[in-house]
């Protein structure tokens, strides 16, 4: 940092904040604005958009992404990344039909434990051994997908009534899946905002060395974060399997890591760590879901939808980071 900019900010902040305000505002709230605009456009342009059925379907579809993305947001906040989430989803889902004999609660518990175990391995590799997150979770992603296939084999259907109702039932018209995603969101939000762990996580992501010297339990926080990510991914996998009443270990959760990362980044959490934006992440997931849905409503083929998504991802990140360059120099 140049001495010029450093002191300038203090000396003359009032003048500066005038110009900074807008950029920061866009960075922080761009995703909400975009979401609002797209919703509005759909209300007018898409037939039958404003119907419980449509909204319900959108929310049900986005719920697992939100759950995974929240865990991903925490990991990214520590300057990490978790590529294993999709495989963990598959593993948890693959275990369900195998242990359904223990009742739905038992099977779910086993699925969640599997997620925790994978998260623990990732956390130890990253936090204790010091392997780069991208490599550690890449290795796990490959290995765990294989394990899921070994356990699950071919597609198995899920008929246990408890699980089926978890996936398809609702409370007061709101699907369980959505309720669970909402509760998870609230809890994670509170953890980030109010808990000691949340504060420490953000500090570690911002400057690991400084955090260690300030006596923060760096290893413990890192391990915990990957465990949480694994747990949430397992949860999402189970919900997805329960909803489709089947577990397909080859397909389930594929590319989920990318969807989750996209949601987090579009939501304004920088990949460089040190910040976690929970509401932004949720909005990011909703935005991507709504974009896909909008394209489908208007009979735009998958291929074009993907191309549009690609352009939007770049555009969104550009808005968030593009002007960061000026600040850096």
């Amino acid at each position, binding site marked *: *940092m*140049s*001495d*010029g*900019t*450093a*002191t*300038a*900010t*203090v*000396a*003359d*902040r009032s*003048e*500066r904040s*005038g*110009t*900074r305000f807008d950029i920061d505002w866009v960075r922080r709230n761009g995703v909400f604005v975009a979401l609002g605009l797209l919703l509005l456009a759909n209300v007018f342009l898409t037939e039958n958009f404003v119907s419980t059925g449509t909204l319900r379907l959108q929310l049900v579809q986005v719920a697992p992404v939100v759950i995974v993305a929240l865990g991903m947001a925490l990991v990214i906040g520590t300057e990490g990344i978790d590529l294993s989430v999709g495989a963990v989803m598959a593993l948890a889902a693959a275990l369900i039909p195998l242990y359904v004999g223990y009742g739905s609660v038992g099977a779910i518990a086993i699925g969640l434990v599997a997620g925790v175990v994978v998260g623990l391995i990732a956390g130890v590799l990253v936090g204790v051994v010091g392997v780069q997150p991208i490599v550690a979770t890449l290795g796990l992603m490959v290995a765990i997908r294989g394990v899921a296939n070994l356990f699950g084999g071919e597609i198995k259907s899920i008929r246990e009534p408890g699980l089926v109702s978890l996936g398809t039932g609702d409370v007061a018209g709101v699907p369980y899946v959505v309720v669970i995603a909402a509760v998870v969101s609230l809890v994670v939000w509170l953890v980030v905002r*109010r*808990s*000691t*762990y949340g*504060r*420490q996580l*953000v*500090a570690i992501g*911002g*400057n690991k*060395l*400084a*955090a*260690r*010297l*300030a*006596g*923060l*339990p760096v290893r413990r926080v890192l391990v915990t974060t990957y465990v949480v990510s694994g747990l949430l991914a397992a949860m999402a996998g189970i919900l997805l399997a329960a909803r489709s009443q089947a577990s397909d270990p080859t397909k389930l959760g594929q590319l989920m890591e990318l969807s989750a990362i996209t949601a987090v980044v579009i939501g304004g959490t920088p990949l460089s760590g*040190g*910040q976690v934006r929970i509401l932004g992440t949720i909005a990011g997931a909703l935005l991507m879901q709504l974009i896909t849905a909008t394209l489908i409503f208007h009979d735009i083929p998958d291929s074009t939808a993907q191309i549009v998504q690609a352009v939007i991802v770049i555009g969104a990140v550009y808005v968030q980071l593009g002007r960061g360059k000026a600040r850096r*120099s």
Partner: protein
Amino acid sequence: MTQHSSAAPAAAVGVGDPVLQTVGVTKSFGGVHALKGVDFELRAGEIHTLVGENGAGKSTLIKVLTGVYTPDGGEVRYAGETVHFRRPSDAQHVGISTIYQEVNLVPLLSVARNIFLGREPRRFGLIDVGAMNRRARELMAELGIDIDVTAELGRLGLGAQQMVALARAMSVDSRVVIMDEPTSSLESAEVDTLFRVARGLRDRGVGLVFVSHRLDELWELCDRVTILRDGEWVHTGPMTEMTRLDLVAKMLGRDIEEVRAEGATEFGSSHLQGGEPALLVSGLEVANRLHGVDLTVRPGEVVGLAGLLGSGRSETVKAVYGALKARSGEVTVAGRKVRTGSVRGALASGIALLSEDRKAEGIVPDLSVRDNIALAVLPRMSRAGVVSEARIDALVDTFMKRLRIKASSPDQKVRELSGGNQQKVLIARWLATEPTVFLLDEPTRGIDVGAKAEVQGLIDELAEQGLAVVLISSEMDELVEGADRIVVLHDGHVQAELDSTDLSSSELLAALAGDRETDSQTSTQAEGQHA
């Protein structure tokens, strides 16, 4: 890729003629004026120093001269002709080389590759590694430095790396060499080599710009000085016509009398002493670094740790703090044994360390002032894992007032503060842990003169309140005036202990230089091993 090793200046420049000039250069960042019409003139065959407080515009001016920034207004002239540098490479092509404070080379590449990066000697279109290494060896011999040019740069010590940067500058036949705090990480034998080379370049008609926080060096090396203050030109003149007091007064924009009355540092006289030792270190050993260091600090006492680079000053405080693994040795605080090798153990025992590298080991740049201050005491500010905002607010408020931290609000990001205020935030962070022993590693390095005085005053105040302080500083004045007692380290063990009440800077210097012969030998070896 082009080879541009022999980029000749537009016109021949005779010794004494201006080679690099700025005329009315302005530069602002987001509405803040960092340079307000600065005139600067560097002549061929002189060493010119650029002086000013942090924020005076020194670095900005240097970045304009080297093409990192393009000026908003005014012009840059090279060899009498107006030039427009858009990138650092533009400046390099015409013959302006820069050596930065933090070595800007590539650690994973060899010394020779670093010297010739972008201008490698080639044969049949491919890099001629043999010729490259040979020429690198010749250059090093010319500089009088014994370094294996095929070694990975990152395995050399900082001093050696700085020499490589210099060799790189020499290899391009530069007309201008700009050195931005090149000596801040050098050991004094290396400083001597650097100065020798710099004078050699000057005698060959090269114009050199030299920036250093160590004022003594300016009179030793430089011919002329330009002083900047608040982005404006204040003075240019021969170094010999300047007294130290003059210089400081001009930098600060204060009267000479005022400066004289306050003394060179902000330290008062001696502090309360006596009582049981607050910190007792015995036989501290760290593999290859420390060989049995003993240290005693009483409550209210400021103990200075002196020593040349590589003597183990920073290692001592880091090992005491548990950030560096000790092989053996015992640390007790107020009679209680401290678990070594654990930062958290040390913190719990009441030890705090303000580390030397503020940026890398101190601040969390994107967090607010508030969160940075509360960082080390989060568990204490929480109940059942939930943070109490009210308690943190109270804590932060107290310290921002007590340390006079200048920030727009507690929520301002720390990265936006000046170096001095960042340092105060860190001091607040450690004071919040209510330490018994405060280890300060170069607390005033790289902060402006005003903040420096405040930090010095604060150290005094803390000692008066009964804190045991260990102070590391490369500035003699600071140690002599600030410390009650000075422990001189040499090669990882205590060489001397001096009572500083009637000590002069020159006596301390003598103690430091005590064993000159063996010292420079061992430290050269140490540099070779430094990774």
